[in-house]
């Protein structure tokens, strides 16, 4: 006899009633609603030094020692020739390649709206970097605007540890 099974006074086997878990959401057709949440172990693996850099106020990209390609967002191996890349420190001054202000978002970020996303570009770096822009009204953001990287004082080891603000003229 399993733990869930009990014997009542009449000696009949009966499954215990429960009031946990799914709730009846609709009756025709029957729809059940339940919560669904997990702890997940996400390793930054070969990208880990980038996040360590953010905690020290440094921005790191990659450079290919074989073909010379440079990457504004780091990658362990070169997307053009396949060679293992080397780490390359990026300047904190950059420009806006493109941008948008999000007034809605995924559920995880809904509470943070509106927020402005930018692709950051550096001269002589082949690719870009996605980040948030702070300190500018949405209608004042421009492509080509000079920006500067700033870092959270208390690192969360997330790509949002770095953000950009307009470069003071």
């Amino acid at each position, binding site marked *: 006899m399993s733990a869930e099974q009990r014997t009542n006074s009449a000696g009949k086997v009966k499954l215990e009633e429960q009031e946990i878990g799914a709730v009846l959401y609709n009756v025709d057709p029957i729809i059940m609603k339940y919560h669904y949440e997990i702890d997940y172990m996400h390793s930054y693996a070969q*990208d880990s030094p980038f996040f360590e850099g953010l905690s020290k106020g440094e921005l790191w990209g990659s450079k290919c020692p074989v073909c010379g390609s440079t990457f504004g967002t780091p990658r362990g191996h070169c997307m*053009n020739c396949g060679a293992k890349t080397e780490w390359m420190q990026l300047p904190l001054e950059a420009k806006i390649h493109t941008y948008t202000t999000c007034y809605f978002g995924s559920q995880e970020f809904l509470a943070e709206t509106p927020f402005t996303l930018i*692709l950051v570009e550096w001269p002589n770096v082949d690719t870009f970097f996605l980040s948030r822009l702070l300190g500018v009204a949405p209608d004042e953001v421009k492509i080509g605007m000079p920006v500067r990287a700033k870092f959270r004082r208390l690192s969360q080891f997330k790509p949002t540890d770095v953000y950009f603000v307009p470069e003071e003229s």
Partner: protein
Amino acid sequence: MRPVYMIAGGITKFAKASPRKDFRYMVKEAFDQAMADVPGLTLDMIDGSVASYFSDHFTRQLMAGIMVHDYLGLTPKPSKRIESGGATGGMCIQSAWEAVASGRMDVCAAFGFETMSHVNTWKGNEFIALASDTNFDYPVGGFYTGYYAMMVKRHMYEFGTTEEQLAAVSVKNHANALHNPYAQFPAELTIEDVLKSEMIADPLKRLDICVMSDGAAAVILASEEMARKLTDKPVRISGVGTGTDAMRMADRPSREVILLPHENAADYKGLKYPGVHSFRGGRTAAKEAYKMAGITNPLEELDFVELHDAFTSSEIQTYEDLGLCKYGEGGKFVESGAAGLGGKVPVNPSGGLLACGHPVGATGLMQGVFALWQLQGTIGQHFNGDDTLQIKNAKRGLIHSHAGTGTYITVSVMERGF
């Protein structure tokens, strides 16, 4: 490789939610509609299937593909699942094409579905955004409309594309869908309506963006011998092409334009390509498909196009990738009416994703079904007698399926085979 034909298709009416039918029953409905169009075809004549669905998160059921294959009565025959983001449906058709072209199968069923109603819209956006790099992109504000907004901002900067031109795509596609009984969101809109709709991610507004849907679609492909035996209106898939690009938008390079046969390098002097304003994968897919189908000037040689307009901006960018106009001229192309129902090459006569809905795994198959009916001349027959959307004497069309920020893109050319 041997010739491959599409002989039948079926589709459910796309809807915000379909709680009365699960994904198996929805596919069964689409599949039975396809089977009904080819009465000579029985289950035992189908050699296998390919399943198309995007997100295990939406389904919360792993191996849903085999559940459908089983529900349709196709076990123990071969089957497999295809997944390539938003392009899953287009890729599914190409996978079935490969099965028949190689001679492995004589008849292959391709089916797709998505059930996006099981979570709220913003959770759904979160699931979709997990199709972006979870180290560098998703945590910054993972939101696909935001990504496409950044792409079109750059398109506007490079080429002068306007918000009114984006709105013109929305007006056209929603109006076409007024005559499509399978569409989720037909609407009579004005440019003003679109411009005044709620801003989601600048410059994309609510009416520039497709909605989430539940739905299913299915097509049946066959060898020449089986196609001739089963239908007097076979449609040949005469060209297939696939292209890709880096998952991270930030990784897109600046190179030279990949040219189609009718273009010259001089047309694009000084243009950095693809950057984030264009889809190199779309151009690559088109080039491969055109070569196989023998197309040298797509604008002159295609009678219609069903393309992946998850956003109005992607339709404009895709006119250019497909070579219907030069890079930079997409905005003017829609404004000129060339993509309208009576235009030079009607684009998304069905209403596209914007108005039909976008149950991801079914979307590319939906395009296949509508393109099939266009080329068979059976739009009226399938649309309750309304043949407003039937393109007169349509002989050759193109379907285009596209995954997040242009990572996977398929182009297939279909032509009348009778």
